């Protein structure tokens, strides 16, 4: 109909008539859609699809026979045109001057079926058992380049003829040997790449592999799932780069925020076009036509934002692509486009724009014609209604939160609880946002005594309810999320700290690695250790070990005993980590007091807590498969307060160990004891002293980790930035309506800077309101979550201070600085002459 045509023309013209507001709305849609498009594309690019996985695993082959198959089995299965090529993978130590380093060695023909698994990026692949290609990292460790030599333990010096790269691990220590080595490997070490002839039926092969018959040993076959003839056998090939739910959930949340802000922009648009809509109505337009003009604007801007967002997101992804390899430590393919997911992101953006336009559209359709024509602001419905609505929504949200939390304890399926918790948090935010008009009206009553700027700002904010409520909700949502995460993080930190079990004494440093025994003394010198010793495990042959058992031991103060249980109910002591100790090690482990007991042949137990009457234990020797009957020995308990498996829990002297036929194991740990709590500098000193041994590291127990602090700070900064930006947007939107007021104030003798004060006060009103509402909105869901499992909530003081203190200051400050004075009179000339 022509009415529809006229309405679309009007909507389009309004977009052009207020280009900045339109741009703002389009940007609000564009940015989150852009983020989603970027995320979808980057994830799809860095997450290899099935075909890429297959290629990395089996190159150009159709299937790979994992190590373990016999030549007879292979000969029986693969006949005729079938091509087989062996692949050997193993670990070796690379000998370096004075030390050694672990490397992966492999032997395969990168010009044969294995092409695509690894890449020769320089030189050539080895063609003789005396030649190797090495990865960049190995070249770095050894200092060898093409033409140089590397030495592998047990093999000897080899000539480097090329540089090889594992496209999935650019930093890997990889040494590629000549392909002939794989051919000479035992069946247990060699895998086989298989290329089937055209038309061969793979099913019998797969069947034979798993059912080798009465005499054969089953072996594993993996076949190409990604694409090609065998894909249909595999079931779940799947498109590797499907967008993760995280991207969609995050994008959806951001779009909710955007929709709220855009709704405010549309509300301003309605207000400005009120008379025009009234004229349309007077000329016979039906409510649906009026709603159509606003929805039309939402459609136009939403389309622009959605399409633009996808386009800009793809450009951003393209701009990110050159850095992806370094970030992911892999060779990534060219950007992978996911049309369906990208389309979904665009549709979500468009829907958000339409949702944002829907409420203003509804109010436009509902507005009485005479009122619309008068240009007066529609009378606002009772603020009490908003209070009732808001409180009901908050109540519902609380129920959902507690329900979700309770369900998460009992239900094994996590989808429903997570949905309930997330939905509850979101509803709660909306509910508190819905209260804001009521609060504004309460505040308005207080404003009579306020200074002029504050009063004008407060009244305007209260009157422009359709604009300020979504803005307050948007700000409050971001702050509430930050407060909620802060509260949850702080509560979890408190819980973790309360339950923290140290795994080393605070003055100890542990050096771990194949060269620990050699790095340790250097580190001990570097940090002035008062005691230091290698930790040598008690070994029984190649694979055997010893362990300590005391099934009747009882803990002096067991945690959470059942009601009425005797002390130490149901506990027993055992220790698997037995070391052969001398006095040095005793000292280093804070057990020097037990030196005499060790010397008299007792087992020294290093325990976290006191055990009752634990003065005898049984030593159990395991030969790698079964335990021998235990032998009782006297025991001496030293309560070090240290738990966990990093340090030995039981010590015996070398003499005692010999009595049991135990020998010294490989000393891959070395402990240092300082005369003070380990500081960051000490740890760095120890690390530096061990740095020449590439596989050996220094570590210390630095207490319960607080990784959340930086995260929380970043979150606060991000949400403050967002909140200030949204406040700024709201203020700019409000300014558009305030021109006549500015003219009047100027003529009344207001100094031009009064406008700045009003602007800043407007920002302040929004920020204070949102900040205060964010506190209950943020704490409520966390309280529900924690209360349901009996944990205490820790009030996130930092986040709350940021919301109720910093945000208003920032918002007022930023608008004050960026705000403008009332312009020169000439700016108003056009409206008066």
């Amino acid at each position, binding site marked *: 109909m022509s009415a529809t045509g006229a309405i679309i023309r009007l909507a389009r013209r309004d977009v052009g008539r207020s280009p900045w507001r339109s741009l703002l709305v389009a940007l609000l849609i564009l940015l989150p859609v852009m983020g989603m498009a970027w995320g979808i594309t980057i994830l799809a690019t860095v997450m290899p699809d099935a075909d890429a996985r297959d290629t990395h695993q089996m190159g150009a082959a159709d299937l790979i026979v994992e190590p373990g198959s016999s030549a007879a089995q292979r000969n029986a299965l693969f006949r005729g045109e079938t091509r087989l090529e062996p692949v050997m993978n193993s670990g070796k130590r690379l000998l370096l001057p004075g030390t050694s380093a672990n490397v992966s060695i492999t032997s395969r023909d990168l010009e044969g079926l294995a092409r695509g698994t690894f890449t020769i990026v320089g030189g050539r692949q080895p063609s003789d058992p005396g030649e190797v290609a090495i990865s960049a990292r190995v070249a770095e460790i050894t200092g060898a380049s093409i033409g140089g030599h590397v030495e592998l333990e047990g093999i000897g010096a080899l000539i480097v003829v090329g540089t090889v790269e594992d496209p999935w691990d650019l930093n890997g220590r990889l040494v590629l040997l000549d392909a002939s080595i794989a051919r000479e490997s035992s069946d247990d070490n060699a895998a086989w790449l298989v290329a089937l002839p055209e038309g061969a039926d793979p099913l019998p092969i797969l069947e034979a592999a798993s059912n080798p018959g009465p005499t054969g040993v089953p072996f594993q076959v993996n076949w190409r799932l990604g694409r090609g003839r065998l894909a249909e056998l595999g079931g779940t090939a799947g498109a590797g780069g499907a967008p993760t739910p995280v991207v969609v959930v995050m994008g959806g949340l951001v779009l909710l925020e955007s929709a709220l802000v855009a709704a405010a922009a549309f509300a301003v648009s309605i207000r400005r076009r009120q008379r025009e809509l009234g004229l349309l109505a007077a000329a016979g337009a039906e409510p649906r036509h009026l709603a159509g003009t606003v929805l039309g604007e939402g459609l136009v801007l939403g389309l622009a934002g959605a399409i633009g967002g996808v386009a800009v997101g793809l450009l951003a992804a393209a701009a990110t692509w050159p850095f992806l390899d370094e970030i992911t430590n892999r060779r990534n393919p060219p950007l992978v486009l996911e049309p369906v997911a990208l389309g979904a992101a665009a549709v979500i953006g468009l829907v958000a724009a339409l949702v944002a336009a829907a409420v203003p559209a509804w109010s436009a359709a509902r507005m009485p014609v005479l009122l619309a024509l008068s240009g*007066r*602001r529609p009378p606002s419905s009772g603020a009490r209604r908003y209070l009732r609505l808001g409180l009901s929504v908050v109540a519902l949200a609380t129920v959902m939160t507690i329900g979700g939390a309770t369900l998460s304890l009992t239900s094994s399926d996590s989808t429903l609880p997570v949905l309930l918790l997330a939905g509850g948090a979101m509803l709660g935010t909306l509910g508190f946002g819905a209260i804001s008009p009521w609060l504004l009206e309460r505040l308005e009553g207080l404003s009579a*005594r306020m*200074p*002029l700027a504050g*009063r*004008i700002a407060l*009244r*305007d904010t209260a*009157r422009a309810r359709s604009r300020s409520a979504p803005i307050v909700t948007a700000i409050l949502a971001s702050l509430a999320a930050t407060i909620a995460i802060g509260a949850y993080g702080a509560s979890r930190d408190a819980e973790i700290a309360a339950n923290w079990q140290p795994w080393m004494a605070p003055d100890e440093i542990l050096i771990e690695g194949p060269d620990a025994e050699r790095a340790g003394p250097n580190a001990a010198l570097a940090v002035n250790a008062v005691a230091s010793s290698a930790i040598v495990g008690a070994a029984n042959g190649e694979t055997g070990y010893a362990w300590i058992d005391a099934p009747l031991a009882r803990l002096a103060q067991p945690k959470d005993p059942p009601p009425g249980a005797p002390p130490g109910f149901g506990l027993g002591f055992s220790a698997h980590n037995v070391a052969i100790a001398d006095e040095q090690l005793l000292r280093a482990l804070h057990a020097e007091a037990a030196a005499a007991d060790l010397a008299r042949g007792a087992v020294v137990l290093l325990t976290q807590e006191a055990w009752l009457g634990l003065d005898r234990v049984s030593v159990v020797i395991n030969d790698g498969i079964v335990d021998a009957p235990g032998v009782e020995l006297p025991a001496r308990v030293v309560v070090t307060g240290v738990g966990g498996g990093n340090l030995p829990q039981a010590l015996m002297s070398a003499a005692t160990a010999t009595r049991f036929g135990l020998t010294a194991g490989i000393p891959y740990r070395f402990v240092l004891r300082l005369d003070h709590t380990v500081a960051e500098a000490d740890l760095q000193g120890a690390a530096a002293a061990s740095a020449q041994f590439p596989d050996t590291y220094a570590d210390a127990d630095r207490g319960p980790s607080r990784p959340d602090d930086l995260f929380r700070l970043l979150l606060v900064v991000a949400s403050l930035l967002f909140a200030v930006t949204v406040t700024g947007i709201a203020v700019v939107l409000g300014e558009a309506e305030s021109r*006549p*007021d500015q*003219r*009047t*104030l*100027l*003529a*009344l*003798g*207001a*100094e*031009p800077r*009064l406008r700045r004060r009003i602007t800043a006060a407007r920002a302040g009103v929004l920020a204070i309101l949102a900040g205060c509402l964010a506190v209950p909105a943020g704490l409520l869901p966390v309280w529900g979550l924690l209360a349901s499992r009996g944990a205490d909530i820790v009030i996130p003081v930092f986040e709350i201070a940021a919301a109720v203190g910093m945000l208003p200051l920032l918002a007022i400050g930023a608008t004050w600085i960026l705000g403008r004075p009332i312009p020169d*009179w*000439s700016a108003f*000339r056009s409206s*008066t*002459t």
Partner: protein
Amino acid sequence: MTTLVQLEGATRWFGAGHTQVTALHPTSLAVEAGELLAVMGPSGSGKTTLLSLVGGLDKPSAGRVIVDGKDVGSLEPKNLAILRRRTLGYVFQDLNLLAGLTARENVAIPLELDGRPIGEAKSAADAALESVGLASLGDRFPDDLSGGEQQRVAIARALVGGRRILLTDEPTGALDSITGESVMRLLRAHCDTGGTAILVTHDAAHAAWADRVVFLRDGRVVDEAQPAPSHEMTAPVGAATGSSV
């Protein structure tokens, strides 16, 4: 008689070079205390420019504008603002009132801007509202007032605090004639008690309330009208009414 407003060759042009547009050619004019001056002329004749110059909203490109003994062109912005809120009162054709403030608060704005205590400003505002016959409407918001009431509130605001110079730009433009007349009566009363008002209008019936009418045309004063000095009523002359047979 005291001269409250004086223009001495006041000129205002915009732009420069060949895009220069002269809104007001050199104009000299004096308005005495007790005088109601109407400025008439077609659209774009420079009426509003003249009013902005007197109102200290704009500065003359050349010449001088002296308001209450102060040279507007040489005043700092701060002092200009002070002049506007202590000496001058402005009334526009419409959108005079801040929609978020009550009538009383609107009237109190100039006093508040001048730093008077809120309580004092509000009682002065009540007095001013009473003087325009709106004593009972102080708590109403502008949207709840009729057009005539809004303009009367604007006049109360322009007069509050004993300001003497009232500048009005088509103050009756959107009103019916009887309501417009009530606004004009307020202006007249203001001048008859020693104040001064300048009324910019293109409506002859309203201009006729003035003691003197200045005609502007293309930025120049082209004529001036003053009523016959006699208060005697004379019969409509010649073709003026066509009522005689």
